[in-house]
């Protein structure tokens, strides 16, 4: 098999004075196999749209993480009420005097009519809070989905029946309505109505409510995948060598369900971002003065802001559109990279 190469190398060595040695190296390297994961990574890197959208998504996460640092360098924070601090910038109604909400070298994205918050830092912190909440929801739903889905698929029988019925039951809930209706209820479980609701309670309630109604689709997919895998002969081979169920799930099943988990979570996260924004928009999520992506939309649609500062809407709006589109494209690319045979 290698003889033609050797002959060729031997032929040239006469001319180039014996340098066929390095030729053997790639031959040895070829014998290291590529795992399905590595192949997926190679295919993904070839997908330009995927790489660009991945960069955009990473950019958003970096901005969110670095929000305190950026606002420190920028010298402002989203909680300062500039209507009190710098009253000379506002008219009597609290609207910035300069056009477009007072966009200037000092306030890059302008000031919010009313309280006069700095829009740039507010957006940074809004992205940070929204992404952190959605990420927490995604992690919680993925973990629950894996636990219940793989358990149902692998155990079968009674556990499968009850988990599947639970999934059916929860899927029958109208999710958005349930979120809106249950948020005040969940919050009031922890805080009496007369007290001020601490921010963390709202955050925990937001995460909990979305988590309860978010894990079913992934659990269903994983149940199906596990059910199919369980019948594969390599699982039987592991059983024949006496592998305990824990090892079979960890070493044989979980590595094979990574694909649906990754693909589904890249589709789920943007959904949670929009759902969270929707709740905050409707006033049941994060409320003032805590910055939040969705809550900025609701601010933008108030009469005062709508009439005086139409540009305010652009900042949360455009940033969210870019983020959601990029994340969905990333999800598509991840799926294509894992399963090159599926046609779009």
């Amino acid at each position, binding site marked *: 098999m290698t003889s033609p190469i050797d002959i060729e190398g031997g032929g040239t060595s006469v001319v180039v004075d014996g340098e066929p040695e390095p030729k053997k190296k790639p031959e040895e390297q070829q*014998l290291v196999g590529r*795992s*399905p994961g590595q192949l997926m990574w190679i295919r993904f890197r070839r997908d330009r749209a995927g790489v660009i959208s991945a960069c955009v998504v990473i950019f958003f996460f970096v901005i969110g993480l670095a929000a305190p640092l950026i606002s420190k360098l920028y010298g402002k924070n989203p909680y300062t009420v500039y209507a009190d601090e710098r009253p000379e910038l506002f008219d009597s109604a609290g609207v910035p005097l300069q056009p477009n909400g007072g966009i200037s070298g000092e306030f890059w994205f302008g000031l919010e009519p009313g309280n006069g918050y700095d829009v740039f830092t507010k957006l940074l912190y809004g992205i940070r809070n929204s992404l952190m909440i959605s990420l927490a929801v995604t992690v919680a739903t993925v973990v629950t989905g894996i636990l219940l889905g793989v358990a149902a698929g692998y155990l079968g029988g009674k556990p499968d029946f009850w988990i599947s019925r639970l999934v059916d039951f929860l899927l029958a809930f109208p999710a958005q309505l349930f979120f809106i209706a249950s948020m005040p209820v969940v919050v009031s479980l922890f805080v009496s109505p007369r007290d001020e609701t601490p921010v963390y309670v709202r955050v925990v309630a937001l995460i909990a409510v979305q988590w309860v109604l978010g894990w079913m689709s992934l659990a269903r997919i994983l149940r199906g995948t596990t059910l199919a895998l369980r019948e594969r*002969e*390599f699982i039987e081979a592991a059983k*024949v060598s006496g592998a305990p169920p824990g*090892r079979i799930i960890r070493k044989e099943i979980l*590595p094979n369900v*990574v694909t649906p988990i990754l693909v589904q979570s890249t589709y789920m996260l943007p959904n949670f971002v929009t759902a969270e924004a929707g709740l905050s928009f409707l006033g049941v999520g994060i409320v003032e003065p805590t910055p939040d992506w969705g809550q900025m939309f609701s601010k933008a649609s108030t009469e005062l802001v709508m009439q005086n500062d139409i540009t305010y809407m652009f900042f949360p709006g455009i940033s969210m559109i870019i983020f959601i589109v990029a994340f969905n494209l990333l999800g598509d690319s991840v799926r294509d990279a894992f399963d090159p045979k599926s046609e779009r």
Partner: protein
Amino acid sequence: MKEDLVLPAPREAATGGAGEPLLVVEGLTKHFPVKGGFPIRRTVGAVQAVDGIDLTVNVGESFGLVGESGCGKSTTGRLITRLLEPTAGTISYRGQDISHAGRKQLAPIRSEIQMIFQDPYSSLNPRQTVGKIISGPMEINGIEPDGGRERRVRELLEIVGLNPEHYNRFPHEFSGGQRQRIGVARALALEPKLIVADEPVSALDVSIQAQVVNLLKKVQQELGIAFLFIAHDLAVVRHFSHRVAVMYLGKIIEVGDRNSIYTRPRHPYTHALLSAVPEVDLTDAGAGRRERIRLAGDVPSPIAPPSGCRFRTRCWKAQDKCATEEPPLIQISGNRAGHLTACHFPEDPTIEGRDEDIVLDPALAALEED
């Protein structure tokens, strides 16, 4: 890629206890419940996949199990490796009853009974390297061979005719035949005493089949491993096995040593099976012609098998007795020692052509009329 066909002489030492029973199966039965009914689902019947079979595999022996698809061969293999729980009957390995042993109780025996699977494309975990796949059983059983597991895996790869450098490769980089060799290496990793090979070559194309069968034969002879070789290909079984059992609809209908079964069959079904094997005959038709039997219809449903002899619905010799009385698996007159047949009206012990062909298939008969 060519398989080295020079087979070394069998090691007598390894098969020292030859003739001694390794695995004894008695009355083994597996019924799969059939559920139905609404709103409360209950058991309404049972698929009698395996219905009371007895067999013995001796130390170092290769035992072939043949039969049509759906006759319970694979279920038998899975029962013996305890992937399935038997409904009734006993499986004893070296005198120890393992028919209902749990995972922990089986642990010491697990390494001695291994399995080779039918489909090389689904029997290897696509996310593990070949090295991990083969060393997995050693890891599970806490076996630390001299020189480390990696060295042992490379050794095994060499035994099964693969390049030891393929250690770090993934299954998708191999062809079907190579994958099956990996499966063989995995089964050998624990140095088993018994390997259940469940149609190990039927998913491979014919040129590769020969290579893998020869590899198994080499392994069997060199290492003195007993094989339960399950296949529907009579030629492969003939090549491989010392003794052969023929199954029909969950029962063993004839068992005996290879030559006895292939040249002196008694059961009509065995006759039909053997005569269905296509044969390239370059000599003049007529001289030394084999008998010709063509059955009609399908195997009856295992949910409601026929009474008495299970083959009677397709047998050309069936009489009233066959419907009422189940023939026992015994050594009937004219059989050699160890050749057992379950039939009331056995055929002559020959496969020579008879005066008149038995063509029960109406379509085929009509074709031949023209």
